[in-house]
């Protein structure tokens, strides 16, 4: 039976939720507003909220100065590609850890996670030299592989957590019905863990989209994604806040739209197995 909540409490909690939501959303709102201001209005004091001469000049300047379509395409290919490649590798790995754990499974999981604590710059030079040797510097395939490796521990951990919620007996039943290992994973396990896999994919696309160390240092022109596009509009000596805001909005808009449409799936996946 649901617990009754009094109206004043409901109003209070709703107001609080809206307050926190607005607080989190405020930087994006401010960036959005600034992107339509002139550089002078962007730094005006006191700040101007809505009553200014709205201009789209910053967007046209940004588009004229850089190759946004190429950067957008690179971001999509790198983020989606690295995530899907990671899923292909992580699903069997997580299956093995969840359903046929060995003596050292927990240790392996912890070790995988510990690689996330390695300072990325420590492997910068080896990776650059490998990329140069294999002639894949400034290529999408290099970034797909690198970002997949970086995010693989998180993908395996997330899938492992979801798989642990699925009763092993169901897989056993499939096996007794004659399903091979591949069929068991593809036709039985995967459909049952779909919400978890979907949220893993979404979260890792977001992580790969925002990754700014490798995507900047391993690219020049051909594979440069939106992170490098943004870096070209920041300046320590010169006020280009309005243009930087326009570039930022253009860089985050696709991922915000994706998050908006998939939020139901994302929340469902993240809370998968949380309540029994």
């Amino acid at each position, binding site marked *: 039976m649901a617990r009754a909540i009094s109206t004043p409490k409901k109003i209070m909690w709703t107001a609080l939720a809206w307050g926190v939501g607005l607080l989190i959303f405020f930087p994006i709102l401010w960036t959005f507003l600034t992107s339509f201001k002139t550089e002078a209005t962007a730094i005006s004091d006191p700040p101007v909220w809505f009553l200014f001469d709205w201009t789209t000049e910053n967007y046209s300047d940004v588009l004229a100065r850089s190759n946004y379509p190429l950067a957008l395409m690179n971001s999509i290919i790198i983020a989606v590609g690295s995530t899907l490649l990671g899923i292909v590798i992580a699903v069997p790995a997580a299956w093995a850890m969840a359903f046929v754990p060995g003596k050292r499974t927990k240790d392996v999981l912890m070790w995988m996670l510990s690689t996330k604590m390695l300072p990325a710059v420590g492997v910068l030079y080896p990776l650059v030299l490998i990329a140069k040797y294999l002639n894949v510097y400034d290529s999408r395939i290099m970034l797909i592989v690198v970002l997949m490796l970086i995010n693989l521990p998180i993908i395996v951990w997330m899938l492992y957590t979801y798989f642990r919620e699925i009763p092993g007996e169901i897989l056993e039943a499939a096996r007794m019905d004659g399903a091979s290992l591949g069929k068991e994973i593809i036709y039985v396990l995967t459909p049952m863990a779909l919400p978890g896999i979907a949220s893993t994919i979404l979260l890792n696309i977001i992580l790969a989209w925002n990754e700014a160390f490798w995507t900047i240092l391993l690219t*020049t022109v051909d594979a440069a994604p939106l992170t*490098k596009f943004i870096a*070209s*509009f*920041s300046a*320590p*000596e*010169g*006020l280009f806040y309005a243009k930087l805001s326009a570039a930022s909005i253009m860089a985050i808009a696709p991922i915000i739209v994706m998050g908006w449409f998939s939020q139901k799936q994302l929340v469902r996946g993240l809370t998968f197995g949380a309540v029994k």
Partner: protein
Amino acid sequence: MILKSALWGSAAGVCLAAGLATIATAEEITIATVNNGDMVRMQALSPAWEEQTGNTINWVVLEENVLRQNVTTDISTGGGQYDVMTIGTYEAPIWGANDWLVSLNDGMADDWNADDLLPAIRGGLTVDGTLVAAPFYGESSMVMYRRDLMEAAGLEMPEAPTWQFIREAAAAMTDRDADINGICARGKAGWGENMAFLTAMSNSFGARWFDMDWTAQFDSPEWAETLTFYLEMMAESGPAGAANNGFNENLTLFQQGKCGMWIDATVAASFVTNPEDSTVADQVGFALAPDTGLGKRGNWLWAWSLAIPASSDKQEIAKDFISWATGPGYTTLVAENEGWANVPPGTRQSLYDNAEYLAAAPFAQMTLDSINSADPTAPSVQEVPYTGVQFVAIPEFAGIATQVGQQFSDALAGNMTAEEALAAAQTLTTEEMEAAGY
């Protein structure tokens, strides 16, 4: 009829041959550059060079620190991704000494006159007699001040003020109720942020980073005097939260009329005098960076320059581009398209002999005087084993100075005293230098 056909055929053949020749020689070069007004302007005007030569350019425009990470990674691994790199005065001597950069002593265009380059700027880009980078624009630092506030305070800014005058004037101009701070200066931690300002300032107080044995000198009375003076002046007359202020933050404050004086890069002059962005554009005066009478002024010297990495396989075309971008012809091109005030400053004497430029840029003479008064080979009153005015041209400097800058920024924020900050700076610098084998 036959003749006509033959003529048309010949003409078509000539056109085709010319077209094929163009295709055969046309190359694509990749240029990494920093995101600032002058460089963005160069990017916008570069189609003129592309049309002239038939070559094309891939631009990689990045924020200064990101650019530094990118090009350092590329050049130190021989990546060969870039044909032209924009580098600073800090990198040029280090990379030049490592033979990472192509000599520009020869192979430049005939009208590219190296003797026209300002001696201080040229000296900073020369390694053992080899010019390793061509300056695109040069800058020093100077005092920018509000003439109306100075007059209201009953003071007159000398052309070459002392630090004592600056401190007294700052106190007189400060009006906390009106949100006017007498002095704005860098406080944000970083080797190119507060440490650029404080290292240049320390030169004028007789301090130095290292003695001739490469021993750190933060325990010297000169450094104590520098830091104490800076902290006291900023506490008396600086803006709130000064420990977070870099160039852009102070530029915003000055343009909003909240700074009586601002000591920073000469390149800021064109921003603060631009009426479209600055509310005090018609009230700005300029003076040389302050001194203490010891013979050195507290101004720095910097140039963004174009260099060719040794790993580039298109060095001739890269030289042709650099000749165009840093030559006198580019100056004329900018003047024709954007006006004389927007010409990249601080690299060539001929620009400062140009009456049209001097008329259009009220800050021109002060910029030239500031640059000429900086000597990267003898930055301090005392003898030093290094070159560089606001930096020490060794690879370890950026890391050490950023850590030292954090101590000084902390002191400015009130989290520690000047003595504590200097003691910490001395310890960490000594440790880092010993670890580096000095």
